[in-house]
Structures are given as structure tokens and as C-alpha cells.
């Protein structure tokens, strides 16, 4: 136990160097900005910035990218409160009461409680990260099941392109040398996430603009606001962290559950949906705590629980690091520096957001033409910087159009991207396992550990539809619609 504190202290030492402080600051700043901008979630932002982090050393690169992750979680709340446009899925629930508070001229306290809640959550989840553990698989469930399945299979089919590592046979390369290394994960992520969003918004009929509520009066919370927020803070922290650790659920569900919990516990449930501060404090705390929770399976097992942590897994692998239990032995300073920087980033978020909240709100007024042409230009640059090849840019173009069609026809993007990164690993392991056992499928159920895994995987696959069925039975109350293809 004492060892952990020594390590953590070293981590803080590393994270507190001037360079890393700047990277953490840039991370939370960029994260907040992209969280505020509509249509660009943390997933897209990290995908766009992966090429940029090539030049950095692993600690700085990962500090930057994780900063973006939790910064964007906060940024999303600003837009939810002021204009009712959640920047990402996890903030959907914040629109319910946050926007109402803004309409009543209480935007300031709503934003403050979101910022402070996020900070409290960060403190809790840093503690939680030190506790570690748990087994899981990744499972993303949003939107129509059939479409999730098709998107996943599509991602897998793209993953097959390139030289088969076991037999060195070319697959689907059609003699094109550029394809023999396979299709780059970052390229596909940018093409499927950033471009379709840009196309859709640029080709929208007429001119779209966002109505943002102005911030009137003090941003400070009253004593009454504090009293009412305190409970939601700690409940949201614990709930969010625990749910964040679970695979494939992530921060979005945490915020919904927290909202439900606060409403149930409240003495005035009728105020919810009409500007109850608990309805902002709880969910916002929960979704930030969820980010910390989602890091646990990534660090300890190397298994991403959400689309965004899958991207971070890719970044680890890009640096030649394999997240998992060994990483704590081989590169402890790296892990602890990231954990320490997450905490420092949280402090920065609070300092940054309370005074600058009005400024961020202004960003909502960025004309779409400027915003999305910038997104496209960054996408092209990102694709080029991967291998300095024109072929990659053309591939970006092609997949961008595919992504546009997928979005148009309501297919979720995240499973396709996730399948690409996990697909090739899964195939190789499956084939290794089968060749070791001479093709005997029973090998997966003979050993206790693999049997337990198989059962667990089945549970993860079977449980969500069963739960949904049960919920549908008692679904007399109205549901909140979450946009499919969530960006957690």
C-alpha cells in the first residue's frame, strides 16, 4: 500500500513538470472546446489528434489525450444548459433541468454546479483508479441491434484487409501495395466520425443556427444551491465511477441513472424537468466520474469499455505499450503520471471553467461553414500525417462518403471503428487457440478461466436485450431519446 503512495507521488512529480502541465492544460482546453462545439465529441477529437501525438513522448501524448476525454465531458454540459444541444450523449440528461434553469435566468448556478460536480467526481475517481480490478469485454449498445451488428461486421470486414500475420497471405489488397499493411485505424476513425458530421451539417437545407440562452446574473451558487447539490455530488461520484468501470455502458448511462436516482430521492420530484439543480449536479458528476471508471479496465486489463477508451488503447499500442497488468510492472511511472495528471487536469478544469464559461458559450455562435470546413481540413491533414501519402487522403475521402451514408441510414459509427481495432486481434487469437487445440472448439469451455470468460461474454451479450425487454414491459413513461452512435 505504501508503495502505491510512493508511485503516485512519483507520478505527480512527472505530471507536474512544466511540459506535462502544458499538455494537460491543452488537453482540457481542447476537450472543453470540442465538448462545446456541436457534433464533435471526445471520440472525434481524439481521433483527429492522434496523428498529432505521434511526435510526443508517450507520457505527454497520453496526458494530452486523456485531458481531452474528461475536458469534453465537461464542455458538453455548457451547451446542454445554454442551448439544449448536448455536445455528447452523456450530457443529454443535463438538458432536462439545466436548460430550464437557464430559461429562469439561473444559467450561472447551473453551470457552476456542473463544474464543481465534475471536480468532485475527478477527485473520487482518482481514488477509485487506485483500487483497480474487474474483468470485462467491450460491448456497445445504442440504436437498432441489427444495425449495430451490421456496423460491427462492416468494421470487421475492413479489419481483414492487409497481410494475414499468421500466413503472410495478402487479403483484399487487390495488388495495391498501400493496402498490404491494412487500413489504418486512425484514418477510419476520422473518416467515419468527423467527415459525415461535417458533410451532414454543411449540406443541411437552409441555414442552421443555435439559439443560446444568455447567462444572466451571478454564476455563483447560493447557500441553498450548495445544500441541494452536496448529496448529488457524492452519490453521482460513486455511481458514475462504478458504472464507468462496467464495459460498454460508460458515462452516458451513468448520467441517466444518476438523474433517476436523484429524482427518486428528492422530496420534490415534481421540480425535476423544471429546473431542479439536483438534476444538473448529479448527472454531471456521474458522467465525469464515469470517465475515471472507464480508465480502470483499460489500464488494468487492456480492455476498452467504450469507444473512446478503445481509441486510447490504440494510442497505447501506437507507442508500443500494451495496457494490462504487466504495464504496472514495466512502465509504472507512465501509468501513475497519467493518473496524477488526470487529477491535475481536473483542478485545471475547475479553474478554467468557472470564469471562462461565458466565453465558451460564445463558441456556439461559430458559423457552421467555418466550423465544419475547419473539421474537414483537420481531417485531411490528419490522414496525410499518418503516412504522408495521397492514397491515405483518398481513402479518407472514400470512407467519409461511406460514413455519410451510414449516418444517413442510422447506422452507429462507433461499433464499426471499434470492430476494426479489436477485429484483427480477436481473429488472430481465435486462430491461435484453435490451432493449439487442433480445431477443437471445446478448448474454450474446458479450462475454468476461459469457461468463466465465455459465460461472462454470453451474459454481456444476452443481458442488455433481456433488460430492455423487461423495461419495455413497464414502459408506460416517456423515454428520452438518445442519438444512436453515441460518442462516449
Amino acid at each position: 500500500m505504501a508503495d502505491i503512495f510512493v508511485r503516485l507521488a512519483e507520478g505527480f512529480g512527472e505530471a507536474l513538470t512544466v511540459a506535462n502541465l502544458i499538455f494537460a492544460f491543452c488537453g482540457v482546453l481542447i476537450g472543453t472546446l470540442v465538448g462545446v462545439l456541436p457534433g464533435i465529441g471526445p471520440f472525434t477529437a481524439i481521433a483527429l489528434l492522434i496523428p498529432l501525438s505521434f511526435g510526443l513522448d508517450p507520457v505527454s501524448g497520453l496526458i494530452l489525450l486523456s485531458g481531452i476525454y474528461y475536458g469534453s465531458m465537461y464542455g458538453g454540459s455548457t451547451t446542454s444548459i445554454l442551448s439544449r444541444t448536448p455536445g455528447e450523449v452523456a450530457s443529454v440528461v443535463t438538458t432536462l433541468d439545466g436548460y430550464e434553469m437557464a430559461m429562469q435566468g439561473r444559467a450561472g448556478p447551473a453551470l457552476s454546479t456542473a463544474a464543481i460536480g465534475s471536480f468532485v467526481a475527478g477527485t473520487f475517481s482518482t481514488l477509485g483508479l487506485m483500487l483497480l480490478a474487474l474483468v470485462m469485454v467491450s460491448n456497445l449498445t445504442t440504436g437498432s441491434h441489427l444495425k449495430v451488428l451490421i456496423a460491427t461486421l462492416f468494421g470487421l470486414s475492413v479489419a481483414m484487409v492487409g497481410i494475414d500475420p499468421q500466413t503472410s497471405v495478402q487479403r483484399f489488397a487487390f495488388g495495391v501495395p498501400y493496402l498490404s499493411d491494412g487500413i489504418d485505424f486512425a484514418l477510419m476513425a476520422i473518416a467515419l466520425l468527423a467527415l459525415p458530421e461535417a458533410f451532414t451539417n454543411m449540406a443541411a437545407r437552409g441555414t442552421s443556427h443555435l439559439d443560446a440562452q444568455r447567462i444572466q446574473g451571478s454564476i455563483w451558487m447560493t447557500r441553498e444551491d450548495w445544500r441541494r447539490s452536496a448529496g448529488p455530488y457524492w452519490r453521482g461520484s460513486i455511481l458514475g465511477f462504478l458504472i464507468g468501470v462496467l464495459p460498454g455502458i460508460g458515462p452516458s448511462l451513468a448520467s441517466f441513472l444518476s438523474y433517476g436516482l436523484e429524482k427518486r430521492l428528492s422530496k420534490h420530484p415534481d421540480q425535476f424537468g423544471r429546473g431542479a439543480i439536483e438534476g444538473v449536479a448529479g448527472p454531471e458528476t456521474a458522467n465525469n466520474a464515469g470517465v475515471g471508471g472507464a480508465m480502470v479496465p483499460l489500464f488494468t486489463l487492456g480492455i476498452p469499455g467504450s469507444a473512446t477508451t478503445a481509441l486510447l488503447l490504440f494510442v497505447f499500442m501506437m507507442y508500443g505499450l500494451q495496457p494490462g497488468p504487466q504495464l504496472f510492472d514495466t512502465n509504472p511511472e507512465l501509468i501513475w503520471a497519467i493518473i496524477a495528471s488526470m487529477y491535475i487536469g481536473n483542478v485545471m478544469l475547475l479553474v478554467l471553467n468557472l470564469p471562462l464559461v461565458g466565453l465558451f458559450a460564445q463558441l456556439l455562435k461559430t458559423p457552421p461553414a467555418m466550423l465544419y470546413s475547419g473539421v474537414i481540413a483537420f481531417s485531411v491533414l490528419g490522414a496525410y500525417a499518418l503516412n504522408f501519402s495521397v492514397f491515405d487522403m483518398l481513402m479518407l475521402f472514400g470512407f467519409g462518403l461511406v460514413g455519410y451514408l451510414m449516418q444517413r441510414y442510422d447506422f452507429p459509427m462507433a461499433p464499426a471503428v471499434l470492430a476494426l481495432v479489436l477485429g484483427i486481434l480477436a481473429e488472430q487469437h481465435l486462430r491461435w487457440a484453435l490451432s493449439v487445440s487442433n480445431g477443437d472448439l471445446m478448448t474454450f469451455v474446458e479450462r475454468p478461466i476461459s469457461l468463466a470468460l465465455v459465460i461472462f461474454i454470453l451474459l454481456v451479450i444476452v443481458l442488455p436485450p433481456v433488460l430492455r425487454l423487461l423495461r419495455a414491459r413497464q414502459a408506460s413513461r416517456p423515454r428520452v431519446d438518445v442519438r444512436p452512435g453515441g460518442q462516449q
Partner: protein
Amino acid sequence: MRPSRDDRRVGSDVVAGGFMLVFAVAYPVAAFAIPKPSFENAVVGPKAVPIAIGVALGAASLALAIRGFLKGRSQRDAASGDEVPPQDLPKLGVVVLLLLGYILIFVPLGYAISTFLFMLAVTTYLDREHWVRNLVYAVVFSAVVYSIFVYVFGVQLPAGVLG
């Protein structure tokens, strides 16, 4: 009455399923063309997984198309809110062509000039009134991004005609 959004939606599942089905048929065909490995020690060869993916994809696409078709006939799909704003196809076409043009001039003209031209063209096409603002934006964006990448991150971007 004009066809409602729901009608389009139900039809869209048929279209989407159909598209994916074409891909799903072509994919295993290409998978069968994967050459045999030079040594035959693996129990599962390089073809097996791609073919399985293709078959599963075909089945899922077919199911989607059929479901869309059946729903279209019996009852209207309870649309979960069409989040995609109505699309202006000519506009999309122009943006897509501009992007293709940008990619093609990226290396020959260099990053700074091609990016400037692309940004100016796109923003002015979409928003003609504010051409001065667009011009300033295009200059600043291409110059700032170029400088950051080349001087701060040390990533060499094509200099093109400026180099």
C-alpha cells in the same frame, strides 16, 4: 397527402439493407480469391474468418431489408426522431467535389495554398455574404495550422509552390 417521414424511413431500411447486401455478396467472393498459404499447418486458414464475416453480414443485411419491407406494409415504424437535418444534395455534391479537389492539389500546391483555397471556396460557397470574414479565416487557419505543425511539432507538410 405527401409521403410522411415514416414512409421514407421504412423505405430507407430496405435501401440500406440492399446496399449492404451487395457488399456482403461481393465480400466473400473476394475472400474465396484469397490465395492459399504456402504452408498448410494452420487449422484455420486465412479465408475462414473473412468468409464467416461475409456470410453473417449478408444474413444481417437481408434481415434488415426484410424487416424494413414488412414494417412498411403492416405498420409504420415508430421513428425514433430523425436526427439528420434535411439534406440538400446539390450542396453536398459541391462540398464533396471541393474536398476531392483539395486532396488532389494538396501535394502539388503545398499545404498552405491548397488549404487556403479549400477553406475560402467552401466557406464562401456556403455563406456568400461574409466573404471578407471567410477570406481572413482561410488565411489565418492555413497559416496558423501550417506553422504549428511545421515549427512546433516538427511534422513536415508539403511546401508545394512556396517551397
